[in-house]
């Protein structure tokens, strides 16, 4: 066997916890609850969760903008609590807001960031030109960012985050609220960066984005990581769990509890006028459903069985609506730690 050099991980997080302290107007709040994960170098790692799950809080701790209440963070081998300086120079940050200086031109925004990261003048100029061309902003380089659309600002914000060629790039929900074209362009750039060796940590509440972009995904809900795996493995994990979507003519009292009580049903979510029933065996469930409709004097408007999607995995774990959620049993096979690269 060949000997391989000891690899340091891009991110190592142990027991990371954040309590926002009580202030005059609010109570103390546990936003991130003892999470653990590791991101290998070169991965695109997705942090997927609904609004308020603790994604930004986690990312802000990883980028040293927020002090953790407990736990350890190592970024590229450096302990963030004691040795943040070398780590900070190697990370790039695209925050939730497109924080460009609107009073400055695209060019000046990039020059400012380049100087902040101590790039030489030649490097700055060359890299800024390269990035503005890649991001389709070259013609607008002397236009103040206040005249930019949201998509253009976001692109500029990403260009600013990578001007110094960071080894590790953090993006906090980079695509929501953008037109489809801008969103696609950004996803393409993220893939390209990853090919060039950049490790990417991306938070999102968009399942499709995580599915298409990420090597591995952590699903976070109410401050806890529910599961971490590749999108494919996540889907497989839930493979035996399928769902049936059904719509009735009415909504009698306690329908949700009654549906949940049907055989083989692990959880129930209401989606629009439809009920989605997660279950291991639709063939067993379907007759019971028909019987249930008869007993309740309901007609069935529509009935579909659905193959598992990452969305199912996500809803199963995070659907706040589902008070009675039972997370399906984990399969016995050992889960692989890293994504295939």
């Amino acid at each position, binding site marked *: 066997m060949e000997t391989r050099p000891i690899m340091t991980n891009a991110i190592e997080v142990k027991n990371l916890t954040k309590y926002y302290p009580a202030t005059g107007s609010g109570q103390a709040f546990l936003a991130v609850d003892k999470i653990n994960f590791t991101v290998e170098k070169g991965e695109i790692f997705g942090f997927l969760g609904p609004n308020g799950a603790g994604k930004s809080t986690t990312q802000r701790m990883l980028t040293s903008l927020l002090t953790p209440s407990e736990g350890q963070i190592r970024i590229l081998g450096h302990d963030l609590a004691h040795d943040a300086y070398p780590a900070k120079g190697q990370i790039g940050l695209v925050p939730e807001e497109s924080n460009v200086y609107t009073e*400055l031109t695209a060019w000046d925004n990039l020059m400012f960031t380049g100087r902040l990261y101590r790039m030489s003048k030649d490097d700055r100029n060359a890299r800024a030109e390269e990035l503005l061309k890649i991001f389709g902003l070259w013609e607008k380089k002397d236009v103040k960012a206040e005249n930019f659309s949201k998509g253009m600002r976001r692109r500029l914000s990403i260009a600013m985050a990578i001007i110094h060629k960071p080894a590790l790039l953090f993006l906090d929900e980079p695509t929501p609220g953008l037109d489809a074209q801008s969103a696609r362009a950004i996803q393409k750039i993220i893939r390209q960066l990853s090919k060039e060796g950049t490790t990417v940590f991306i938070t999102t509440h968009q399942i499709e984005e995580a599915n298409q972009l990420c090597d591995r995904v952590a699903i976070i809900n109410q401050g806890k990581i529910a599961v971490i795996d590749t999108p494919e493995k996540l889907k497989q994990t839930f493979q035996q769990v399928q769902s049936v979507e059904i719509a009735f003519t009415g909504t009698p009292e306690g329908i949700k509890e009654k549906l949940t009580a049907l055989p083989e049903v692990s959880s129930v979510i209401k989606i629009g006028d439809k009920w989605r029933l997660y279950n291991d065996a639709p063939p067993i469930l379907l007759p019971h459903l028909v019987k249930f409709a008869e007993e309740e004097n309901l007609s069935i408007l529509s009935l579909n069985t659905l193959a598992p999607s990452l969305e199912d995995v996500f809803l199963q774990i995070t659907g706040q609506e589902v008070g009675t959620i039972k997370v399906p049993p984990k399969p016995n096979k050992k889960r692989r730690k890293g994504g295939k690269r």
Partner: protein
Amino acid sequence: MKNFSRISDEFAQAWTVTLKDIKVYYLRPGMIMFGFLMPFFMFFSFSVRREMAAGEGMSRLLALTIFFTAAAAGPFIIPTERRMGTYDRLLAAPMSLITLLLGKIAVGAFFAIAVAAVASFVGIVFLNGTVAQPALMVLGIIMGAFTFSAMGLIFGSIPTSNPGDVQMPSTLIRWVLLFISGVFIPLADMSPVARAVSYISPLTYAQDLMNHAVLGMGELNLWLDIIVLFVSGILFLLPSIKLHKRGRVLGY
């Protein structure tokens, strides 16, 4: 060698922050209003109907503009940056907090120095003032500008993303300091109690330093003025550092 290059890096970064802020914020209405117009307005409204020698007027105008203008920048710029989300860029960059604070202090200080230059011009041309010790005046302007900019930064460091939250208290405190500091009423004319109170305000020493420079005489020892200004400028950094750490715990 490595340490030296780190230090020169940090200075360059502070300077980068300063230049950027000059470009972005100097022409903002908030800065013009609170930093530039306000001190002149205050000066003229208080000097009207008062017999005052030209030199005395100029010395007061200088102390007042440096004080008010320098301290106006911090409470305006930092909360604005927090609200825009751009402050995270600075906090995430590979530089120490002190470097960032120094960069921000320089922003207010340079603004005050520029305004003081206008004030000197007004004083010399329109009030026919003469300056006893021009070099000391320049030194006093620079020292006062940095010290009071550092003071303003304390307010800017309060964890909030709304400039309005800190504008009020910072303006109020500046007004209070103005009235207890021998700017409008000279130290020599004060009652013993008022005079004792005035000694807690760094502005007292800045005004006295200006009197030394412009009039060629002050109530206090010149070196005392210089040392107090210098030391309080450094001490003003401490609450700012503490408040920034607090902000990082609270999540601002």
